[in-house]
């Protein structure tokens, strides 16, 4: 077994891991290793060939591969060690990383700090338990994306998409452009889970019907998918039997949610949040284990990679501070609470003291679509400030800056709470 020491080990070479590694390097940590299980860097971005990335971070619109290439180049230009085709098998709470690859076999890497950036994975047919047979042709939207965009196989001719998450919408358009007949996108909820721009550019442009309050109630076919039965659902999301109809299809794409991939985090005794399925972190994106940080989709599922980049820079910055001993814990922990209509807030707590910071961005999602809202921040029940937004949607993350100077005056602060509430008379 190989034994080596590293200042910083980043697990995962997608957009989160690359941005975190670059940031830590820029902040003075030169002994960095990025470990990636795939044959190339970039994570999921190389298969996301559509445009729409980078509007916030780079102020220009890029495709997924282009966005990835910028960070791949950033890492290549610096003396950052990259291990491809390397699988991390275990991480311990004393920051030993165990990894394996073909060339070097099994390695034990003792790190001073670890950044978890393993991303997320898709919920599958098994996870949502659709009744019926188990034929070929029922695949996740991301799998179809890989087949179509990387491997060169369009998986079917007659397609139904279940779930209106962004990957489902993007793949509805992609398969239509490749000549498939995309018959419908069914969404269980009364609103779409994807970005508005994707509903417009992927469905409306191509007259693909979006069937809200609909779900797949049976999968039909032996060996190969032949058809799906879809039904409308009532307000309790239960299918209404008399609305059932059969749609002929050879492919059912599932875009029914993403789950942060935290098997390794659990091995290191990292505590997870039930709401996000990712680690509970402080404002440095540090988990309950000192020196183990998390960023990107392993922490919570993002809608825009731009926010992943911003968050990963935070994690990279604080990992560098940790290694250099540049911050201390304040001793008192401020809990950040998701109030009315807010499903979660990242970070879940604020507990670090540092000289050089101006603001703490709070990332959150609403639990239901709202229009004309006030976003209210409270410190121990007293309103700090509020601002208005024309609307808030569960599919679109909201970033709220919390000024450091706001906190500085509040010595015994125990709790920050965020409410997002529709204005009266609306």
């Amino acid at each position, binding site marked *: 077994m190989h034994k080596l020491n590293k200042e910083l080990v980043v697990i995962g070479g997608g957009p989160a891991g690359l941005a975190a590694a670059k940031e830590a390097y820029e902040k003075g940590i030169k002994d960095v290793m990025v470990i990636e299980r795939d044959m190339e860097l970039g994570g999921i971005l190389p298969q996301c060939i559509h*445009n729409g990335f980078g509007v*916030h971070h780079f102020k220009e*619109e890029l495709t997924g591969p282009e966005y990835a290439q910028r960070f791949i180049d950033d890492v290549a230009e610096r003396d950052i060690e990259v291990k491809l085709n390397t699988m991390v098998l275990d991480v311990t709470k004393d920051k030993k990383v165990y990894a394996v690859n073909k060339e070097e076999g099994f390695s034990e890497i003792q790190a001073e700090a670890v950044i978890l950036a393993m991303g997320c994975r898709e919920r599958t047919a098994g996870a949502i338990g659709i009744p019926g047979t188990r034929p070929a042709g029922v695949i996740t939207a991301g799998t179809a994306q890989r087949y179509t965009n990387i491997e060169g196989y369009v998986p079917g001719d007659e397609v139904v998409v279940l779930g209106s998450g962004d990957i489902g919408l993007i793949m509805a358009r992609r398969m239509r452009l490749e000549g498939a007949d995309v018959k419908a996108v069914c969404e269980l909820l009364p609103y779409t889970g994807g970005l508005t721009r994707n509903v417009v*550019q992927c469905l409306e*442009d191509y007259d693909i019907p979006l069937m809200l309050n609909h779900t797949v109630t049976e999968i039909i076919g032996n060996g190969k998918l032949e058809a799906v039965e879809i039904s409308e659902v009532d307000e309790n999301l239960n299918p209404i039997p008399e609305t059932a109809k059969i749609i002929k299809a050879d492919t059912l794409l599932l875009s029914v949610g993403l789950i942060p991939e935290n098997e390794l985090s659990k091995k290191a005794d990292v505590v997870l949040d039930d709401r996000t399925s990712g680690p509970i972190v402080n404002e440095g994106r540090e988990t309950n284990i000192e020196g183990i940080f998390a960023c990107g989709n392993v922490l919570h599922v993002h809608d825009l990679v731009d926010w992943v980049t911003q968050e990963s820079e935070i994690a990279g910055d604080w990992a560098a501070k940790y290694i250099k001993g540049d911050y201390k814990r304040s001793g008192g922990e401020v809990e950040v609470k998701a109030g009315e209509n807010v499903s979660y807030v990242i970070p879940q707590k604020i507990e670090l003291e540092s000289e050089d910071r101006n603001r703490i961005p709070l990332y959150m999602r609403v639990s239901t679509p709202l229009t004309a809202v006030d976003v209210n921040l409270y410190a121990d029940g007293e309103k700090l400030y509020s601002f208005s937004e024309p609307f808030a949607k569960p599919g679109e993350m909201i970033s709220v800056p919390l000024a450091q100077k706001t906190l500085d005056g509040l010595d015994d602060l125990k709790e920050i709470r965020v409410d997002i509430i529709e204005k009266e008379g609306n």
Partner: protein
Amino acid sequence: MIEKKQLTCVACPKGCEVAVEFEGNEIISIDGHACPQGEDYAKEEVVAPTRILPTTAVVKNGSLPLVPVKTTKAIPLEVIHDAMSIIGNIEVEAPIKMGDVLIENILDTGADIVATRNLARQI
């Protein structure tokens, strides 16, 4: 006849709901946008909608069988399918660099088809 159209602006991920009143190609009013991009988008969307086209092209001797490509600027929505069949008929020799022009001025739109990633030769 004055027509009304409710649009969702896609100039950025915010997605403002923009209401446009127009007669033929003449815009009468635009309302609901949060920034000037929304006004431009609404005008264009009513008169002549355009889109960036991202797709893939077949690669010869590449480390992967496809290379992702895009139009260098938005092209008319109505020619998207024609553009797809032209791109579907080319084969590009690896190695390829991001930004390499694979088709110049596709369908006289003024847009080139460029590669959006680096792709090495098959080893």
